């Protein structure tokens, strides 16, 4: 394998695939990045078996070939090279690669490309595409609710529900739930439910562009899902299992509704949480006709914040985890927030006013009993 590329371009390409590669992978070859020079492209692949990212860039290929180079050396070396054309040369029948930059050279011992696991074929009966910026924004609105507890793998993923004309994304860690609906331009060939690992979607959100022009093509296979965005391909294994019937837990009727200024509540919540306990920062929300009072009292002291609210229904006192409120408000992405309550010990709903395409649901906490001691 022989090719020449600008350093900048290589560094960027490595940055795209590097995040999924662990320097301490149980399978040594997976602690490296696969370099493949073909036609006029260099294709880089990084994988942890469950999640694979591939990225193609144009380079000057002098001789086709492939090699796997260990991530811990190649990534930092490329970052530190001077900004001159960089030439790679892997000797035939060898995994050692000589990198020439200006008058200097270095060599890295890698793995032979044949050892690299075979990637799944991009096949699937259901395909659709979405604007990258739209998917990126939608993912950011649900990923915060994904669980990090490996004890229940289902909740570490996001449910993708393909329905006529619509894609629904649902994530929950059992404490809160986020639901985003996206319109599809073309009808999917059939209805489908998939659970996609949150980690993979985090990478999709990271690598998707913010501009309007780019598209993501999504291909749903039996055990895998594929995301194709320009030169980037993301392959992820699906999570097996049954997602719970989330529709049933979304309340339709509310006792109290309040319209709030998102930024004001976020700031008040932030301040109140500074006095709350780190490990369980619960704060009290008191909704009255014209205001919302955010307060907490602990051994450290107390705080009482008052923000404007346009409320309807009964006055209500409810306790929430401050972190959940902050994350929920941030995910709304709207200047105003509608907080709808069903009771002090049952689900609350946050949504951007007038927008039916998104909501997040949040369960309160039972208030502490008496003098709560650490």
């Amino acid at each position, binding site marked *: 394998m022989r090719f020449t590329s600008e350093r900048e371009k290589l560094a960027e390409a490595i940055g795209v695939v590097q995040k999924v590669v662990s320097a301490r992978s149980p399978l040594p070859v997976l602690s490296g990045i696969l370099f493949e020079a073909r036609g006029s492209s260099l294709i880089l692949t990084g994988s942890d078996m469950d999640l694979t990212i591939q990225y193609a860039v144009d380079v000057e290929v002098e001789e086709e070939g492939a090699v796997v180079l260990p991530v811990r050396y190649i990534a930092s070396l490329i970052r530190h090279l001077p900004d001159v054309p960089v030439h790679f040369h892997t000797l035939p029948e060898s995994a050692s690669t000589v990198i020439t930059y200006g008058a200097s050279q270095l060599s890295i011992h890698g793995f032979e490309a044949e050892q690299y696991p075979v990637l799944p074929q991009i096949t699937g009966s259901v395909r659709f595409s979405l604007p990258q910026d739209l998917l990126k924004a939608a993912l950011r609105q649900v990923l915060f609710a994904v669980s990090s507890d490996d004890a229940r793998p289902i909740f570490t993923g996001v449910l993708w529900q393909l329905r006529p004309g619509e894609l629904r994304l649902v994530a929950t860690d059992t404490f809160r739930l986020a639901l985003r609906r996206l319109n599809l331009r073309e009808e999917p060939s059939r209805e489908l439910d998939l659970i996609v690992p949150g980690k993979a979607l985090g990478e999709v959100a990271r690598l998707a562009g913010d501009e309007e022009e780019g598209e993501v093509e999504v291909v749903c296979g039996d055990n895998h899902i594929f995301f194709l965005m320009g030169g980037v391909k993301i392959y992820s294994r699906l999570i097996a299992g049954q997602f719970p019937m989330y529709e049933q837990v979304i309340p339709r009727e509310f006792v109290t509704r309040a319209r709030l200024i998102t930024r004001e509540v976020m700031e008040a919540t932030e301040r109140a949480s500074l006095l709350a306990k780190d490990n369980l920062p619960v704060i009290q929300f008191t909704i009255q006709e014209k205001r919302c009072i955010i307060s907490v009292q602990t051994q450290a002291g107390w705080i009482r914040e008052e923000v404007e609210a346009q409320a309807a229904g009964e006055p209500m006192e409810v306790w929430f985890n401050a972190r959940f409120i902050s994350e929920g408000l941030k995910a709304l992405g709207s200047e105003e927030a509608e907080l709808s309550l069903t009771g002090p010990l049952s689900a609350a709903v946050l949504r951007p006013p007038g927008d039916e395409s998104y909501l997040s649901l949040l369960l*309160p906490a039972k208030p502490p009993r008496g003098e*709560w001691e650490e």
Partner: protein
Amino acid sequence: MERAILLADMNSFFASVHQALDPSLRGKPVVVGGDPERRHGVVLAASYEAKTRGVKTGMTVYEARRLCPEGIFIKPQHHLYVHFSTRILRIMRDFTPLVEPFSIDEAFLDVTGCQKLFGSPVDIALALKRRIREEVGVTCSIGIGPNKLLAKMAAELQKPDGLTVLGYEDVPARLWPLPVRELFGVGPRYERHLKFLNIHTIGDLANFPVRILRMRFGVYGEVLWRCANGIDESPVDPHSLERVKSIGQQVTLPRDYYRLAEIKVVILELAEKVAERARGGGYAGRTVVLSLKDANFAYLSRMKTLPAYTDLAADVYRAAVELLERHWPEGWPVRTVGVALAGLTAGPPRQLTLFEGREKWERAERACDYIRSRFGERAIFRAASLTGAGVRYAG
């Protein structure tokens, strides 16, 4: 004003309790420990008569029998010791409300403010010893000092039935010549670390540059140096024991278990007991600890922090099983299993959850607590306990 602190340490407490209850045991070598039918019984307490034969706390019952064949071996009966301990604490509280139980057989008393009522600290100590001996039938050693550390060190100096006063001025003469491991707070690991710095006696530590200790051991280095100099400002805290940090249950299996399925049954039983105790005290915790020992006492202890506080056996069980499956190879013999719930806090706010029917589980487990408290331990238990792997309800 200089404080006056007492540390009362019951002598051979468990053995003394049995001698107090049964006069025929007095003056005889009594050894409390183990369960004759179970394996690995160790000596929990030995009367002074047994100690003179070389029986020591912590040795195996087997070894103790060899050293002292005529010894009277008694299975521990914890409810008795708790009862005696409560009676002793009640006597102490007649002198001062500032009583801090330190273990089942030791307590600190702050008598600074009650000398007008009861006389000097030595008078109080003598009166306390007399009342405990006459009313409970147990002797104790009392140490008196200007702080908890010196009171504790003083009590260690003379046993049994001792009474020792240790003031700041006595520290160089009486504490400094002692080996450093005798200092409260120095365990075998620190002893090794300190030896490395050529610190062998408490005096070596007291005169070592505190700057270097702080560099090497952090804050604890300075704490140890202060202790070696007899300095300790911690108050006698009557509520210290009420702040429970963790609740654990452990069991030695009747035979080695090899299959994870069998070990899981034991984990379930322990998880239920742990959760029941947590609920009983109004606690919830966030960290689950699983510890396992094999036949050679190879030890594994792993913990997992849960996303929310819990007092439910279902949560403790699930986390412990996850730890088991992740860290213990199937087929390796297990002899001892322990499950603990740590990071406890009393009456914390409870995050509610979706989907899991958690509130129902909570009610179910509380109902089981109630049934057991009314109709006994065996009134309701999991069917898994009947599979032969169960130990809690076996036999």
